[in-house]
């Protein structure tokens, strides 16, 4: 029996409305429990105790992430750590190696991460990288928004067939949720085109982004999956795109979540910072964070993650193929593109968010404004769309900006075009400082609920997995901004499902890492099985039998979430 008692910490757990009370947390055999008999006692006096954090959207494993690693040797230059004891060597800043990815998340108190875009044909690759990422539990979202099956079924409004296909694909790819990236636009990119508005027709397929999004919401709720659809909308990154974003969010109106996982939202719109821009060109570029945040505040059945800009040199990567081409035309840096037959595409381009460039400054402001204008932090989650707006290793710096107006003011002063950043945004007028309770909502309870995993993660209720982080941070003391960043950069203690991972700041174990996937059961659907058989015969370049991910060498420690969607 492995038992631990974390004594006298300041505990923050929104799932139990615990807001900094001094309490003990007990762990027994991987779970949080009420009490323990003969525990190993850890004194957390004067420290902050929270559940392990969840990242609802990060690009950490798979083909495009590895393109980033492989085509950016300069990202590793003078940034490597040698093998030490049981720890493997680490390398890379914006696209770290799988080992550094696992270690770096653990050091920040993160215990669960979702890979945000898995091309189904490359599912094996995604799972191999997940396997080699130590400590953290991971799941991956297969992309559906440009998938030929989906486009053809939804053109005819065949929701049940769409659902049956989703069920099949989640199973054969060992996927976790339904991801959409630039719906329709990425298929258009197959011809070098794009869909910028939700009403733009998709070439040949005679369907619009709007129809794809609504259809997939309906199919997702038909199945009752743990997570809602996870949407990267059209027209990302362009001045004036906030109207497209509002058009997109409105598509969720009238839908109600149907599932047994305690999820209330039907649409999660990701990295909404990139979708909240005003202006007509870069010269009059401005923040429309308020307009977008206000809508999200009103509309209770949608959630968002932010995609904070961290002002670093980073590597952008997305299944939004046309956007990356657009970006390389802007910054003239190296461009990788990877179109995937029948399914999706991807692009990768290095990018420098420079404090000397006015647009970068406004993007930084937009991200923070979205969060600071949000009223329900359970529906507004902390991400950097790693590595697109910045590396996930900057989360502690983002927390510093969110928790300290002083920190924000210092950064605003540091901008070269400080005045213009201020005039094109509202960041300078905001005095809100997030509390640790709100931080716990943004990074723990909120994402766990939206992912449909609140029965496992996101809190310290007895019965939940014992993922516990202890930070050397005393909420009753005054803190300089940089002390906030320092404290959340490096947990003092971390448990993953009850296993001590970090003790006194040192990583001591690779833990018992799991791969999460969702296995929906649906009625027999001969037509969909026929369509699958037919497409593999005619259009895929691998056979149907060589498509499914099977075997321990891909997923040594699976955790399957069963969903019964039979009627």
């Amino acid at each position, binding site marked *: 029996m492995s038992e631990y008692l974390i004594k006298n910490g300041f505990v923050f757990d929104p799932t139990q409305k615990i807001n900094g009370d001094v309490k003990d947390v007990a762990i027994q055999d991987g779970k949080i429990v009420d009490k323990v008999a003969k525990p190993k006692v850890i004194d957390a006096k004067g420290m902050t105790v929270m559940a392990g954090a969840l990242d609802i959207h990060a690009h950490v494993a798979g083909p495009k992430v590895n393109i980033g690693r492989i*085509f*950016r*040797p*300069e*990202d590793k*230059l003078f940034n490597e750590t040698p093998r030490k004891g049981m720890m493997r060597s680490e390398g890379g800043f914006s696209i770290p190696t799988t080992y550094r990815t696992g270690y770096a998340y653990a050091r920040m108190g993160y215990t669960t991460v979702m890979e945000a875009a898995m091309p189904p044909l490359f599912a094996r690759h995604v799972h191999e990288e997940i396997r080699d990422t130590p400590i953290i539990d991971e799941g991956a979202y297969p992309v559906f928004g440009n998938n030929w099956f989906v486009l053809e079924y939804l053109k005819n409004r065949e929701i049940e067939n769409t659902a049956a296909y989703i069920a099949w694909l989640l199973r054969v790819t060992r996927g976790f949720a339904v991801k959409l990236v630039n719906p329709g636009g990425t298929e258009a990119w197959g011809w070098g085109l794009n869909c910028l508005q939700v009403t733009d027709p998709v070439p040949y397929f005679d369907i619009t982004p709007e129809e794809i999004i609504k259809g997939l919401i309906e199919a997702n709720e038909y199945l009752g999956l743990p997570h809602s659809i996870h949407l990267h909308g059209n027209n990302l990154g362009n001045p004036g795109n906030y109207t497209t974003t509002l058009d997109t969010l409105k598509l969720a109106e009238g839908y109600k979540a149907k599932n047994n996982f305690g999820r209330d939202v039907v649409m999660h719109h990701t990295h909404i910072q990139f979708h909240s821009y005003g202006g007509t060109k870069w010269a009059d570029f401005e923040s429309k964070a308020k307009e977008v945040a206000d809508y999200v505040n009103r509309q209770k059945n949608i959630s968002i993650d932010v995609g904070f800009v961290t002002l670093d040199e980073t590597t952008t990567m997305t299944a939004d193929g046309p956007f990356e081409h657009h970006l390389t035309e802007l910054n*003239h*840096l*190296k461009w990788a593109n990877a179109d995937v037959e029948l399914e999706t595409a991807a692009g990768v381009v290095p990018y420098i968010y420079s404090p000397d460039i006015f647009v970068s400054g406004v993007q930084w402001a937009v991200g923070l404004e979205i969060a600071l204008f949000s009223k329900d932090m359970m529906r507004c989650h902390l991400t950097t769309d790693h590595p697109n707006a910045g590396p996930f290793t900057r989360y502690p710096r983002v927390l510093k900006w969110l928790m300290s107006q002083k920190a924000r003011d210092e950064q605003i002063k540091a901008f070269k075009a400080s005045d213009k950043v201020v005039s094109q945004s509202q960041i300078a007028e905001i005095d809100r400082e997030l509390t640790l309770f709100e931080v716990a909502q943004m990074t723990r309870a909120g994402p766990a609920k939206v992912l449909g995993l609140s029965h496992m993660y996101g809190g310290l209720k007895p019965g939940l997995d014992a993922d516990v982080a202890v930070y050397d941070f005393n909420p009753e003391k005054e803190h300089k901004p940089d002390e906030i960043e320092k404290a959340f950069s490096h947990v003092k203690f971390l448990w993953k499902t009850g296993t001590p991972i970090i003790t006194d700041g040192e990583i001591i174990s690779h833990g018992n890492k799991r791969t999460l996937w969702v296995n929906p059961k649906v009625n027999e659907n001969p037509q969909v099985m026929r369509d699958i058989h037919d497409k593999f015969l005619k259009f895929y370049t691998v056979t149907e039998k060589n498509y499914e991910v099977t075997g321990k060498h891909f997923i040594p420690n699976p955790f399957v979430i069963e969903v019964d969607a039979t009627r």
Partner: protein
Amino acid sequence: MQTVTLIPIAQPGLRLEVDNISPDKFAGKTAEQIAALHVYEGNTQHTMGKFFRVEGESGATAADTRIVIKGDATRLKYIGMRMTAGEILVENSTDMYTGAWMQGGKIHVKGNVDAFAATGMKGGELLIDGNAGNYLGAAYRGDWRGMQSGTIRVAGNVGSDMGYFMNGGTIIVGGNADVHVATHAEGNGKIIIKGSAKSKVGGQMVGGEIYIFGGVDVMMPTYVYRRDVDLEVDGTKAKFALFEGDTAERHPKRKGEVVYGKLYLKY
């Protein structure tokens, strides 16, 4: 300025990584402390003292520290890597990465240097009395930011890929250059070749200048003759034919003028 002298007393089996031979690392250290610094032979860590007798002592700062390497240095990699100030004199030849990523100070090699000398150079001065290997003053793999500033002078010949992704600074070559001079150069770099160059000169060049005294064996098809100009180049007054290119590349505008890579061939 104080001088530290390194006299080789043993040769490594493999190449020896001596990134600690730099005024920045020596500054403020006694001979004993310097002899205790680490050098690497493959996976094996040794002390400097195992391979060098260390004489003299360093100045308080890099700027007033001078390092002299006597004897055979042909198996020493990374001499003066990332140095910011001070001086290094090598009395014979060196291996790869001499002065790689150097930011300031001066390195003088009386013999030859092997490949990747002054990779990603940000400033300072590198003097080579003999020949230089491939990728002199080039960018590190994948980096679009090559040589930024500083001066490199080579009395002899240089290998291929000199000034790869060069953004600034000056390289002056007394002898001949092998293929691929200033490929992908952009910005204000300047390369002067007193001898001749082979093919692929200025390929994919967006900006910068190349001066060649002794001719090019095969010109890039994407360079266009503009006009003749009289110039004084590194003390030589002469008439040059000006070519601009690489016309296959994108070219930014400066003050309404399209900026090209400039290739001057001496008559």
